[in-house]
């Protein structure tokens, strides 16, 4: 029974494209927008938490995920696919820690996830993931923001958007972003960018924001302490929203 699906479902088209990946990107582009902005002293990632019905308890829906103490992630696209990747990312981070007793550098974790996503474009009986990820991490090289696509390609960004409104959002970011931006401004800008394409009322319950900021320090015994990624509480989000009103 299993051998009927041992061929790869992602096969090349005559023009050299992998149409399954193109379609996966369509799934991503029909998902709600997510933003990531890198500041000099940290990174902010944010997304809309679009609930299909007012009856949904949106406090229990988590889109911004903590992968390890210094890395966080958000997505645009298919939620269930995202959950699988969050679990794989968390496991990969802990496996690294198991060997080296250190948090993985952001780039290393991104490579791991990207290579998982690539596997699903070249294995039998599976389909690509229908998500684009924005991974934010702070390691000894400083803050780094990466985007990973369904194909498994990844890019480091200074500021980016994925999802439904990404074209407008990126244009907006290009105008507003500068290399010296600090985290407070970056959070402000991220919220404004989300607001551009937001359908409905933007409240502290309809957006999710995660930040990572701080400095890399060393303890007395030489162990390195990295800044921690955390999600903003609804009250903190409310304060930021009040500032832009």
């Amino acid at each position, binding site marked *: 029974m299993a051998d009927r699906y041992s061929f790869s479902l992602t096969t090349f088209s005559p023009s050299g494209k992998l149409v399954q990946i193109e379609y996966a990107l369509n799934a991503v582009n029909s998902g709600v927008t997510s933003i990531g902005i890198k500041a000099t002293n940290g990174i902010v990632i944010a997304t809309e938490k679009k609930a299909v019905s007012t009856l949904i308890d949106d406090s229990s829906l988590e889109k911004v995920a903590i992968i390890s103490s210094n890395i966080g992630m958000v997505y645009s696209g298919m939620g269930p696919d995202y959950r699988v990747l969050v679990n794989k990312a968390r496991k990969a981070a802990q496996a690294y820690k*198991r*060997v*080296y*007793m*250190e948090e993985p*550098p952001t*780039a*290393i974790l991104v*490579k791991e996830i990207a290579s998982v996503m690539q596997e699903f474009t070249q294995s039998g009986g599976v389909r690509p993931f229908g998500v684009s990820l924005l991974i934010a991490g702070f390691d000894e090289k400083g803050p780094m923001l990466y985007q990973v696509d369904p194909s498994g390609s990844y890019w480091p960004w200074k500021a980016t958007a994925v999802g439904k409104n990404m074209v407008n959002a990126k244009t907006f970011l290009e105008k507003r972003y500068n290399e010296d931006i600090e985290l407070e401004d970056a959070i402000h800008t991220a919220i404004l960018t989300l607001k551009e394409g937001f359908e409905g009322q933007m409240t502290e319950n309809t957006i999710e924001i995660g930040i990572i900021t701080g400095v890399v320090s*060393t303890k007395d*015994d*030489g*162990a390195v302490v990295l800044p921690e990624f955390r999600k903003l509480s609804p009250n903190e989000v409310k304060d930021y929203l009040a500032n832009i009103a």
Partner: protein
Amino acid sequence: MSIMEYNGGAVVAMVGKNCVAIACDKRLGVQAMTISTEFKKTFQATPKTYIGLPGLATDVQTLAEKFRFKVNMYRLKEEREIEPRALAHLVSSTLYERRFGPWFVEPVIAGLDKENRPFICSTDLIGCINFAKDFVVSGTTSNQLYGMCESLWEPDLEPEDLFETISQSLMNAVDRDCLSGWGAEVTVITPEKIITRTLRSRQD
């Protein structure tokens, strides 16, 4: 006959003022018969870290190669050298993978981290790390080395003095161990340079 005593060997590492030193003997034997006097047990892992591997000679060679592989892969993936602390945990995890059929070596790691702070540690054959602030010893001569180091070591020795201290500790300890000796090699690691010296010792 214990497997750890089949080939013989001794390694010691010490902390000095902004420097570390690691030293090993050069004997390779098959029980009582000495078959080589050029079998060094210390290997350079990164420009600022050394690993010493005393124990069963075949495992010494294999693990030296395994760690070279792992350190190289780390450097290629992370685009930086591995720090001594991470290397210690890497060694520990590698040994524990073989918990129920272990590698018969008890490694010693010595190096400077990226802030040039001295770092030494040793592990047992299944990966238990012993972080030390003064010195670590390993091999068939470990008991004698403990005695020598405890008496001769003092904190904040300059590189030249550290070299003398570690050399005397090793030379006199291996003279009380029939399975170690036949020459010694001492490496002193400072932020500027690494100096490796070969010692002339009793050839018995």
